[in-house]
């Protein structure tokens, strides 16, 4: 026989062997499955019982603490009293003598940053860098309590129209100059200037907001209508950060912002590499510990994780949820989680039939199985939700009218005039793989009530184009970085607001959310938003699916990192135990 024939026969035999073994492997798995299932089921009641035992004690403790916490929050929100005591407390932790100074932290992001002008950009990667470079007047700490930052204190005028902020003295910009009220004025005015085109201008106020310099360290902000939550909105994101006007280039753009933060931008190589250097004159004594943070985006999940496992990077931003377990089991990697205070959702186009009919939207909300969506979308690392706010937030209203009921869903559809269902298109995006996975499961679930859904999953810029122009039936996306009630209700759902992508318009709802942001008292606001929540969930312009876990993975010598529910990554508390 010639060489050719031998080889051919060998290949055929190999294929047959593989087919046979494949079958055997499958069989073995199938055989094992019931045993594994049984073992899990056996263990489940024990685990459940243990949790139930502990739960009442935990509940009681929380209830006891609640009024004290509430009172404290109210005090601070009212007139921003807490002074450097807060800063001192967090400093004390760092100065415990353990933390070591120096070193370079190598960080891998998932996506590239789309620009660094805090007034214009909104990409998550951009914000993560900016949170470490540019600072705001107020901030949310790791427990999501409002704290002073560049402002030491603030108070609201009698008529509620003016907030006056007293600034911290001796805060230095990265270019060596001191920050004063003039800088606050300049930054805020650029933000709210319509020509800048800033989406988050609302953090400061509408275009006719007046910003006055009272003296070098005092600035007054006056709104046309009372805004009770200005200290909160100023803390939301880097859009309201204070930057030096020397950041401006000749053509009015900013490619490297000069801020007051713990790190300054030392080197930028396009969107492939960034080096942040320690700010030696940082106003918070003792911080940061690191000399440098080097940031590189690695889009591919496998490569990013290999880089972490191989020690090429020390800290990784996004973990593919399907790899969570294997990383947790790895003793050489620390995996840290916190529930996000955000949501994955279906946004429905209320300007199109049949989605303008609330019964249709409610039918969809009743037909979906959120647990299965969570399993498919994010491999179970999520909590199902029926409204915008997840458990763990002080704004959790727990209004849940949409427990799965396929029969009722069909009834509603018939009532709406679609007894045989209808055709529609789902619009997830490949930018967020979990939305595509969820869409595939959603398609099956919708088929059960007669809705025939197709899936269109474009890449990000095309998706933005379609979603921004109401050219969709229902899109799938997620929100993150949400802390205050205002962020869950006002910007996305008030008529004509900047993030209202569904065309939802309900005057009663508008009245509620307008009132909610005009006052400061937590209890009063809670009652208002509770009503707003019920209205919004009943009307269902967004159909909420689940709230993901925020997952970070890093090497064991990385210390001091805190996973936050609002997904902020603060590197100034990080030190290397090497």
């Amino acid at each position, binding site marked *: 026989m010639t060489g050719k024939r031998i080889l051919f026969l060998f290949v055929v035999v190999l294929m047959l062997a593989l087919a046979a073994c494949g079958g055997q492997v499958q069989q073995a798995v199938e055989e094992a499955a019931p045993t594994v299932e049984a073992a899990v089921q056996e263990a489940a009641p024990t685990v459940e019982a243990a949790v139930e035992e502990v739960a009442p004690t935990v509940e009681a403790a929380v209830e006891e603490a609640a009024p004290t916490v509430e009172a404290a929050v109210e005090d601070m929100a009212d007139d921003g009293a807490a002074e450097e005591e807060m800063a001192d407390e967090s400093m004390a932790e760092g100065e415990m003598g353990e933390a070591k100074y120096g070193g370079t932290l190598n960080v891998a992001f998932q996506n590239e940053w789309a620009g660094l002008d805090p007034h214009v950009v909104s990409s998550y990667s951009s914000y993560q860098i900016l949170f470490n470079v540019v600072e705001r007047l107020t901030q949310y700490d790791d427990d999501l309590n409002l704290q002073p930052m560049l402002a030491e204190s603030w108070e609201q005028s009698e008529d509620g129209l003016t907030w006056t902020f007293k600034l911290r003295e001796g805060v230095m910009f990265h270019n060596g100059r001191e920050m004063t009220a003039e800088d606050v004025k300049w930054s805020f005015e650029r933000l709210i200037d319509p020509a800048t085109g800033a989406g988050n201008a609302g953090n400061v106020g509408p275009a006719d907001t007046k910003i006055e310099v009272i003296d070098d360290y005092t600035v007054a902000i006056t709104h046309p209508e009372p805004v009770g939550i200005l200290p909160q909105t100023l803390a939301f994101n880097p859009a309201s950060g204070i930057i030096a006007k020397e950041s401006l280039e000749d053509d009015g753009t900013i490619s490297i912002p000069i801020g007051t933060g713990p790190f300054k931008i030392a080197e930028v190589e396009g969107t492939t590499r960034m080096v942040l250097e320690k700010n030696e004159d940082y106003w918070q004594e003792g911080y940061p510990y690191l000399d440098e943070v080097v940031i590189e985006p690695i889009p591919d999940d496998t490569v990013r994780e290999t*880089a972490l496992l191989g020690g090429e990077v020390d800290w990784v931003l996004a973990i593919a949820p399907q790899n969570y377990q294997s990383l947790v089991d790895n003793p050489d990697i620390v995996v840290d989680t916190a529930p996000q205070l955000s949501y994955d959702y279906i946004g429905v186009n209320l300007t199109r039939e049949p989605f303008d009919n609330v019964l249709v939207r409610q039918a969809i909300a009743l037909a979906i199985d959120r647990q299965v969506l969570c399993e498919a979308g994010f491999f179970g690392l999520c909590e199902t939700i029926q409204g915008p706010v997840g458990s763990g937030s002080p704004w959790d209203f727990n209004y849940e009218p949409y427990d799965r009921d396929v029969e009722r869903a069909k009834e509603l559809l018939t009532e709406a005039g679609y007894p045989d269902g209808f055709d529609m298109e789902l619009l997830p995006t490949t930018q967020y793989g979990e939305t595509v996975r969820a869409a595939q499961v959603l398609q099956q679930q919708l088929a059960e009530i007669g809705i025939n859904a197709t899936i269109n999953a474009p890449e990000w810029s095309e998706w933005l184009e379609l979603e921004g122009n109401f050219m969709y039936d229902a899109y799938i996306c997620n929100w993150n970085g949400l802390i205050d009630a205002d962020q869950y209700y006002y910007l996305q759902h008030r008529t004509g607001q900047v993030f209202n992508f569904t065309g939802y318009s309900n005057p009663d709802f508008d009245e509620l959310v307008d009132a909610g942001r005009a006052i400061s008292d937590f209890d009063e606001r809670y009652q208002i938003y509770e009503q707003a929540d019920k209205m919004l969930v009943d009307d269902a312009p967004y159909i909420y699916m689940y709230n993901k876990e925020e997952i970070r993975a890093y090497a064991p010598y990385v210390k001091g990192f805190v996973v936050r529910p609002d997904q902020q990554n603060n590197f100034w508390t990080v030190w290397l135990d090497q």
Partner: protein
Amino acid sequence: MNLQYIIQRLISALVVVLGVTFAVFLIIQLVPGDPARVILGVQANDENVAALRERLGLNEPFLVQYGTWLGNALRGDLGKSLITGQEVTPQIKQRLPATLELAALALLIGLAIALPAGIISALKPGSLIDVISSVGSQVGVAIPDFWLGIMLILLFSLTLGWLPARGYTSFSENPRDWLEHIILPAVTLGIISGAIQTRFVRSAMLEVLNENYIRTAHAKGLSERKVIVSHALPNAMITIVTIIGLQITALLSAVVVVEVVFGWPGLGRLALEAVLDRDYPLLQGTVLVMAVLLTMVNLGVDLLYFVVDPRIEYA
């Protein structure tokens, strides 16, 4: 070869480059997707998109935009990235060497595989070596490059821990590091390139080996080695040089995928990002540089023919 020929070729190269940049600019404006929306992200609404487009000069008519870009480009100014605001020229300058190094090494690896495999297969058709290299090249052609890349990372980086998974160090900084980083991506590209070239080398050699003059050479009593080296190879060179020229073009496009997988900071990845972000100036700049590069390479290959085959004359 004469001067006239070279000048003619240069002029047609210029026309090609202009045509390519025009076509790319046209296409990227026609597909859905707007850089202003990419910058603003989900915060985009009609007002701020309009304001940003105005600020970025995107509302000018298409030909005006292209003309402005071309005018500036001819003066060496490729503009600034819409997304990051950074100058395009330094970015390209910084990332071009990485791509060239990768493509060059991949080409060498491909040739190192294809030349021996192809020539030996041609000399011994039907033998075991021939069969193995045929099957090998079939498999190599079919394998997707990103899959191969990830498999190599999993094996050499994760499991064996011999090589880093990604990244780049320049040769001047640390030659050993440079080699460690470039090996896996270059091998990924090289294997597939080599697989494709093997088949062409083999058939080029086979064709030549069947010619009369080879039989004559054997009849004259020349050793096998002399026949191959002095008679067969030189005649096969034209085809082989053509293939190499085509492969360089193919490599410079395949390099995009490999650069993404390996986090290689090259021009291919830059062009891909520019497309995804609809970053017009950055895209135009990278396409211009690539187009110039490729037309020069093809010109070089054509001129190489004169060296390889003294019989060739161009009218």
